[in-house]
């Protein structure tokens, strides 16, 4: 077991979680997208590192796919959306930044507790890092709940997705390729759909903040 493999894996997995926590910290839409790109890249590194280590060609392909979709395409799409509304910031989150960070810490602890139980089935370098993935999922979800802007919500959704992807790589070295392909495609499509909706809604309704729409209620 080469130390580069281990070091890279730990570094990249750490980067995934770190970037997700950073998204809670930063408010500007632009920096959110940057964090997301960083995360996508780190995720690709995890996949490729694992693939190289286990000589798993499917995983290498997946890594490439992740690199293209999550590292490049999705951030680019989001940046285009962000550019329509330059300088926008998540000015008033439902939970303020310091509290969010405390929450993130708590969520990480929880995912550590749950994750180690999961990892206990097959202890190993990769598996032991699984809690990081779960933490990313939870932080992403937390972001979804507490951030008001549409872009932030999409970013939160992507964080959840990236976290799951990280867990997939770490625990199982990737699910069967067809499933992986399908899920990646789905993520892409969801982003496209969301973007389409944001744009259409922006055109149609004069609601300033899309996520605050409450016309439909009982």
């Amino acid at each position, binding site marked *: 077991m080469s130390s580069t493999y281990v070091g890279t894996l730990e570094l990249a997995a750490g980067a995934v979680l770190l970037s997700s926590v950073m998204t809670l910290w930063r408010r500007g839409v632009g920096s959110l997208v940057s964090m997301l790109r960083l995360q996508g890249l780190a995720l690709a590194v995890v996949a490729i590192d694992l693939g190289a280590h286990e000589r798993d060609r499917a995983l290498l392909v997946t890594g490439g796919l992740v690199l293209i979709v999550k590292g490049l395409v999705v951030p680019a799409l989001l940046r285009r959306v962000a550019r329509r509304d330059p300088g926008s910031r998540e000015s008033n989150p*439902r939970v303020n930044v310091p509290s969010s960070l405390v929450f993130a810490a708590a969520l990480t602890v*929880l995912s550590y507790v749950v994750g180690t139980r999961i990892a206990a089935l097959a202890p190993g370098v990769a598996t032991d890092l699984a809690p990081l993935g779960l933490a990313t999922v939870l932080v992403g*979800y937390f972001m979804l*709940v507490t951030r*008001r802007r549409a872009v932030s919500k999409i970013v939160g959704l992507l964080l959840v997705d990236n976290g799951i992807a990280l867990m997939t790589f770490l625990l199982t070295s990737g699910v069967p390729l067809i499933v992986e392909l399908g899920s990646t495609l789905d993520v892409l499509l969801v982003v496209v759909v969301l973007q389409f909706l944001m744009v259409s809604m922006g055109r149609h309704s004069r609601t300033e903040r899309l996520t*605050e729409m409450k016309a439909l*209620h*009982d």
Partner: protein
Amino acid sequence: MTVYLVALGLCAGGGLAGALAPRRHRVWVASLLGVLGCVAALVAAARTLLTGARATYHTAQILPLSGLSLSLDPLGAWFVATSAVVGLATCVYLVGYARHGMASRTALAMFMLFLLTLLAVPVASSVMSFMFFWELMALSSLALILSEQSRHGDARSAAVWYGVMTHVGAASILLGLLIIAAGGGQDFSQLSAQSTMLSPTAKGFAFFLVLLGFASKAGAVPLHVWLPKAHPAAPSPVSALMSSAMVALGVYGIVRVGVDLLHGGSVWWWVVVVLLGVASALYGALHATTSTDVKRLLAYSTIDVLGLVLIGVGAAGALRAVGLTSVAQVAMMASLLLVLAHAGFKGSLFLVAGAVERATATRDLDLLGGLVHAMPVTTLVAALGAASIMAVPTLGGFSSEWLLLEGLLHGLSAASTPTVIVMLLGVVAFALTGGLTAVAFVKFFGIGFLGRARSSGALDATEVPPSMRVAMIMLSALSVVIGLAPGVLVTTLGRAAATGLAIPDVAALGHSTGLVLAHLHGAVAPFELLGGLTVVMIVLAVGARALGSRRARRVDAWACGRDLQTPRMQYTATSFAEPLQRVFADVLRPQADIEVTHAGESRYYEQALLYQSRVADVVESRGYRPVISAALRLGRVARRLHNGNVDRYLALGFVALLVVLVVA
């Protein structure tokens, strides 16, 4: 069983004919098939009642995942017979009534379906079969209540009340039955075998659950609220069926589950049944005296009579539980006979109400009067019905009430204190009810049919078509036969009661026509009574003739010398009941509004004075309304849960995720 299945088939055919046959023929075709179906059901029921043989039928092809099970035993056959007799009369009645209403496809189909379920419920012998027909009965009667909804606005609210109460009741029955069925299996025979292994608590729980549902169907106070709304709203043939056949099935259910499936249980179950009966009898009778709507009066009187039936059933159950089986059988016989007699007199009275409504376009007693001149046959039937329900000796109501009193009196010698106390309460309720019923039906007949017409509708009334008259007379005749010769029914009645209570058939042996309770020192011979009465009447009539003056001279009423006599000066139903209403004001809580319109500027001269008085159902206004408004408030508050904020929805999921992660 074949005959019985044919009966069901004929009713179903009637329904199809009603739905599909061309307009000109559908009424009589449906009625004919209905009549034939009822006759077949009567034959099947009579065979079971006479031989005591039990017939069963099972098929897995009908009703998915459960199958259909039917079983005809003497107890069920008694109720089948009751339903069939009323069904027979109402089908005949329908031919004439259809020109007035209920001629639509849906109404006819639903009517036949209703009839079918009435015949099927007492025979259904598995949880699924029973609930299927039970709910179908509710559904079809609900549709029938609504069949005149565009004419009677009250029908909608009545239907909601009825639908909800019967559905909740059915849910309660279902849960109770399922608890008995928890060991697997759903046939009543299996349930009966399994229930011996249930704990007393579980049995009691199951019994009170089913009691809730069945008592509500039987119109027991305080679960009666739907009844005075639904019966008036339904077309008269339907009210007749509902009041005399459907409501009785609630009683059937209590006996079937309490005795057959749960083997009688403890005395306390039946004490509760008697208490329900006592409350119903008194409350129903009291409200009947103050009601002015003919059908509402009859509906409350149904509550009253069913209360007496429940007293009988409860007494029978309690006496059975303390070992006095022969007295228990008498009480049960009384209940069963009262059910049949009630089918006769209340059925005919509801048909009378329909005839009156058809002839006068009103059901308000305060607007009726003088129908005796225009509608002699209807009046005669009304008189017989009213007399029977007042328990005038030699009529149906009397025979059954006599049996009931005998049962209660001999039950007083039981050794168990709770039993004696409820018997005593039963006797007291019985006595009070008798007097109140008399007031109600003297009012019904005296105000509605005698005197002078109080509205143009009543003035222009004409007699109803022959088929309606025949139907009314048929049901009247039933009550007269029960009254005059209860002895001929005693054997079958005793068998049905004994099967119902699962005890040996010992108690009553009729001698020719009367009732003699050999070991209980009681006897009544209505035929001889009628003979005596007739002799006296003939003597009087002959005597009057002998004294000369054959024809009476018509003169203006004297009325203490008052010159002007208008119909408006007669007592109305409201004023007739006013003294009694005042006596029982604490229970009835009548509401009166006085509205004064002053003439011009003056405060002293009144131009018009509007006085309104009405008696609302206290149980409804104090017991049900608060619950309903609380539920509506809850609904309003709950709407805030879904306030349109997507963050809140996401947060819900997030919390759920965290909880699940912690738990897993």
